Structures are given as C-alpha cells and as structure tokens.
C-alpha cells in the first residue's frame, strides 16, 4: 500500500478499533464491579432490616406465619412474569391500584431458616436455596434457574438465619445495559471521526496532488522550479530539493549548450587559420592535397555537430514557421552548392511542380535541403545529375532529392540514420551526421522522410514529407 492517505486511514481505523474495544471492556468491567458493590451493599441492608424486624418483634413465630400468609397473598395478586417490563408493570398496576410495584421486585429474595435447617419463610415462595451454614456472602447455583447471590446473617438470641438474595444475572444485565448505552454514542463518534479525518487528510494532501499533476503535465525540457510559496511547510523541503535538482539539470543542459557554442568558436578559428595556410601551401605544392581533404572532413564534422547541438533542444511548438517561397529557397541553395558539385563532376537540377508556399522554419529547411543535397553530391557517382523536386500533394509539401549513384540496400537504409554511420568508410569527407540532422528537422516539423530507390535508373531518393496547415 503506497498511498499516504490510505496508510493514515488504515492506521487510524485500527487504532480506533483497539481504543473502542479497550474502552468498552473497561467500561463493562468497572460498571460490573460498581453494580456488584451496590447490589451487595443493598443485600446487606435488606438482610439487616429484615433482621431488625424479627428482633423487635415479641413473637417472631407469629410474625413469620403472618408474613408467609402475606407473601402467598401478594404472589397470588401478581400478574405472570412474562412479556416485557412495561407489560408486567401495566398488568400489576391494574391489579394493585395502591401499590404499582416493579418488574424487578421479585428478583429480591428473603429467607428465614432455623438452626436445624428448616425453611421458616421464603419470598418468593419458590426460591430454592440450600440451608445456610455460614454468615456472609455466598453464590449458589440453583436447579431451576440462575445463579443466586446471597447475604446471610445469624441472630443468636432467636437462633435464626436471615438471608437476602438476588439472581446474579441481574448484575450482568445492568452492566450490559450500561455498556450498551456507551456503545452507541461511541460508534457514532468514531464513525464521524473517521469521516472527518478522511476529509482532513484528503484536504491536506491536495497540494501534493497538485504538484504531481503539475509535474505530470510537464514535458521533458521544462525545468522551471515549482512555486513552493503556498505549500505547507512539510512539502516545502522536498519541493525545494526537487527545484534544486531541476536547477542542476538545467545548469548542466545550459553548460552543454554553451560548450557546443564555445567549441564552435574555438574550433572554427584555428580551422580557418589552417585552411588559409594549407591553401597557400597548396599553391606551390601539390602534396598539400591530402591535408586539405582532412581539413574538409574536420570542418564538416564540426559544422554538423554544431547543427545537431543547436537542433536537439528545439521543440515542435517553438518552431517559427512561415510561408516560404520554396522554389526561391531551393534555387538559392542550389546556386550556392553547384560550384562545389561541379568540382566533383556532379550537376544539380531543380524541378518545381508547385506554386504553393511552404510553411516551415526557413533556416531549418535550408539546413535540411543542404544536408540532403550535400549527401547526394557526396555519395553519387561522377557525371550524375541530382534532381531536387518540390511538389504539393493534398496537405503535404514534398521535397525529394534523387541521385543515380550506387544507392542503398535495405540494411544500409536502416543504418544510415544512425549517428556517425558513413556509407562509404573510405570517403574522406562525410561526417555521418547528415541523416541525424535531417531526421531532427523533419521530426520538428512533424513530418517524415523515406529512403527509396530512384525510379528507373536506380540510386537513392530521399523524400521528405512536410504536413502543411
């Protein structure tokens, strides 16, 4: 169970249950104890009162016989002790207008025994208890019913045992009733406490849920700190740690970007110097050619790495797309690349099938086209004509660059998109990053690109599909 809320609720529910049980058993035992004391005391009191009556009487035998008569009379007048307490009392009242009586009165028992073990008086008359042997409290189990609690005292002058008794169950019943009275309000209180605690926990965990929602909605590049101002103090510490981590990650990213930009500068200046010196050298020494080729390759790697470094933090939402004259853009770029291509004996043609504008970010499209065409120049064969064509199909703008060189087989097609893969290892100028750059730019524009075999003559055709608004 991972939820804090559930843990708190379960722990509290457990604790409440234990507390309730403890409280109930404690209530029950103290109540039972107190009830016992009170009842025992009343037993003593009854016995004494009864004894004092006998002691004061001149003729206890006559008194006892008249008492027996009155018990019989009273018992005859009593309604049967069935049904509820209220029914009994109502029945009683209707029979004895001047003495309404009580349901529990018959629980009270009195007996008078002589020293020979003869029962002289018993109320109620069917109370079955053994003959007393000692004074004091005793507990008996009778045949008919419940256990009885009794108090016995001895009158030495009259040689009589006086005994007051009560069923034991009475006490348990009272204790139970008290406990029941406690149980209901307790249950209500506990139930409402649990509801209240659930709500409170929920309410107080809300900031945590808000933070997790906020973090969920972030994309991977968003590293701004979470506002911790209005958070409870317990959450501020972890959120601040999180913010510090964001800060560190953002710093690392910034340093990385900064590094590529610095590296650009620090690499390009010495490269430029080298190039100038090598070109001067090449004017008088043909052996400088391999130097120049090595330099070309280095320049290209640096340029492409920097392009990639610039592209990678970009996001589709941040593109600055605008309507472009694709024909013009391609023509200018091809014009720039043709002299280079001609040196390799390669020609470039532009075929434009559309007058529709191209919605895209101009600098990225330029980089894309440049990479496509430079790749084609590099990998086609001497004497080839590279065909760049632009067209519009439904909602897509299509750019394709076709050469008629050796082309790529299926395995190579899947390999070229990997970074630093070069189709021709012996080639001295490729950096193996061209397709990574193409892939990045196409993805940024939510488009796709396909590597196909050039129709009819063979070779490689790269087709870029850019969805248009």
């Amino acid at each position, binding site marked *: 169970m991972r939820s804090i809320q559930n843990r708190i609720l379960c722990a509290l529910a457990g604790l409440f249950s234990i507390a309730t049980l403890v409280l109930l058993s404690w209530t029950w035992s103290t109540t039972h104890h107190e009830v016992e004391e009170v009842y025992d005391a009343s037993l003593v009191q009854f016995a004494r009162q009864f004894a004092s009556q006998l002691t004061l009487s001149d003729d206890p035998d006559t008194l006892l016989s008249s008492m027996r008569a009155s018990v019989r009379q009273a018992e005859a007048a009593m309604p049967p002790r069935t049904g509820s307490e209220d029914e009994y009392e109502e029945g009683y009242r209707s029979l004895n207008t001047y003495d309404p009586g009580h349901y529990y009165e018959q629980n009270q028992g009195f007996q008078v025994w002589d020293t020979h073990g003869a029962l002289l008086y018993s109320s109620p008359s069917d109370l079955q208890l053994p003959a007393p042997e000692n004074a004091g409290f005793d507990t008996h189990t009778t045949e008919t019913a419940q256990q009885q609690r009794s108090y016995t005292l001895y009158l030495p002058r009259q040689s009589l045992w006086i005994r007051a008794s009560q069923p034991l169950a009475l006490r348990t019943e009272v204790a139970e009733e008290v406990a029941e009275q406690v149980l209901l309000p307790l249950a209500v209180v506990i139930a409402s406490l649990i509801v209240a605690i659930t709500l409170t926990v929920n309410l107080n965990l809300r900031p945590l849920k808000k933070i997790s929602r906020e973090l969920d909605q972030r994309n991977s590049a968003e590293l701004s700190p979470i506002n911790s101002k209005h958070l409870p103090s317990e959450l501020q510490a972890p959120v601040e740690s999180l913010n510090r981590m964001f800060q560190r990650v953002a710093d690392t990213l910034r340093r990385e970007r900064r590094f590529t*930009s610095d590296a*650009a500068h620090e690499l390009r200046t010495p490269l430029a110097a080298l190039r100038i010196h090598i070109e001067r050298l090449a004017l008088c020494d043909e052996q400088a050619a391999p130097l120049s080729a090595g330099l070309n390759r280095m320049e290209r790697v640096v340029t492409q790495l920097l392009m990639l470094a610039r592209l990678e933090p970009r996001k589709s939402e941040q593109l600055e797309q605008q309507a472009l004259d694709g024909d013009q853009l391609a023509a200018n770029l*091809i014009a*720039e690349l043709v*002299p280079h291509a001609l040196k390799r004996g390669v020609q470039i043609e532009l*075929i434009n099938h559309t007058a529709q504008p191209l919605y895209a970010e101009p600098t990225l499209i330029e980089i894309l086209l440049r990479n496509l065409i430079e790749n084609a120049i590099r990998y086609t064969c001497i004497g080839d004509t590279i065909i760049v064509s632009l067209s519009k199909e439904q909602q897509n703008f299509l750019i394709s660059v076709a050469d008629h060189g050796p082309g790529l087989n299926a395995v190579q097609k899947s390999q070229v998109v990997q970074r630093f893969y070069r189709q021709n290892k012996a080639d001295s100028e490729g950096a193996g990053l061209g397709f990574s750059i193409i892939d990045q730019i196409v993805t940024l524009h939510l488009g796709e690109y396909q590597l196909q075999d050039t129709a009819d003559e063979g070779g490689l055709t790269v087709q870029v599909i850019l969805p248009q608004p």
Partner: protein
Amino acid sequence: MRLLLIEDDPLLGQGIMLALQARNYRVDWQQTGSAGLQVMQHDSAGVVILDLNLPDMDGLEVLQQARQQGIATPVLILTARDAIEERITGLDKGADDYLVKPFDLDELEARIRALHRRASGRDQEYIEHGDLTINTAAREVKFQNHSMTLGRREYDLLLSLLNAKGRVLTRRQIEEEIYEDDPESNALEVHIHALRKKFGKSLIRTVRGVGYMVEN
C-alpha cells in the same frame, strides 16, 4: 587595393595577411578592436575585414562605432558563431557582408572584390575570360580578337555572369538586376541563346530550374 584586417588570432591573421599579400593586396593587420578603429578613422582602406571575437571589444561594437562616426568603408565580417543569428545582427549594425569560418581563400577574395566594386560604384575596367575580353569603360567586347556587337541587355547579362564567375546566378537575381524595368519580359532565355551563339555553347552553363553560370 588596401585592406584593413582586424583579427586577434595570430595564426589566422597571419594566414589571411600572407595569402592576400600574395594576391597583390596591401594588408594592414590590427589585432585589437580599438587599434582597428583608430586605423579606420585616419586611413581609408578599400575594405575592412573584421573578426567578431576580439579581445578588447566586440567586433559588432567596432562596426557600430565606425558607422556612428560616419566611416562608410565596406565591412566584411568574419564569424565563428552560427551564421544565421550573426548575419542578422551583423547586417543590422551596418556590415556589408559576412563570412563564416572556416572559409576558402577564393571565397574571401571574391567577397572582397564584390564589396569593393559595389562601394566604388564601378566595374573592373578590363575583364578577361578565355578568348573573351571586355573593356567596361568603352563597353567593348572582343572575342578571339574580333570586336563583337551586343545588344544592351545581352551586354549587361554577359557582364553580370562574368562578374559572378564561378557562381550561379539565379533567374530571380538576373531578372532583378537586368530586367528590373521590364519584369514581365521573358527575354532571358532568348538573350542566353544569343550569347551562346556568339561565344560558343560552353561559355554559359545552365543549372536547370535554378539559373546560369560562367565557370572558372
């Protein structure tokens, strides 16, 4: 022509200076922005080659101050940073052209020539290309030592292509330069055809869909 080179990197500065001197330019090389600015104030160079990353002040700052002081010498910026942003800020601050490191010596010289030509408002007096000679002052064209007669547009077109020798001029560029008073004209192909007829097919290369060029 006299050039002012403001470049702090000793290796690159020396390389550019020696290479350009070998091509008959006089080069004044300064290694700080302030020294460069001082030279610009007192001495007029044909073209200033300005590196952006200087030890004492930013190259763009040098450019801005020079322009504020009314120095109109054409400035070619050398930058090692990414081209696109530099181009925009550089051109905004009054640069005439930019070149991203590393660059070809030929490219550098071509830019210098173009800037100088643009600034002085006149073309080279004599242009030679193979068997073709043009006296721009007299608008005379000679091919294999024979004087040729060219129409005005034909002459302008030939001159543009020769001035841009080794580079492709797009149709749009040519149309803006030569047919600006008659934008609807479809005469470009006609004139190209005429020039080829007079000077041979190989003089002008067609880059289909893009434009035309005269190869080196």
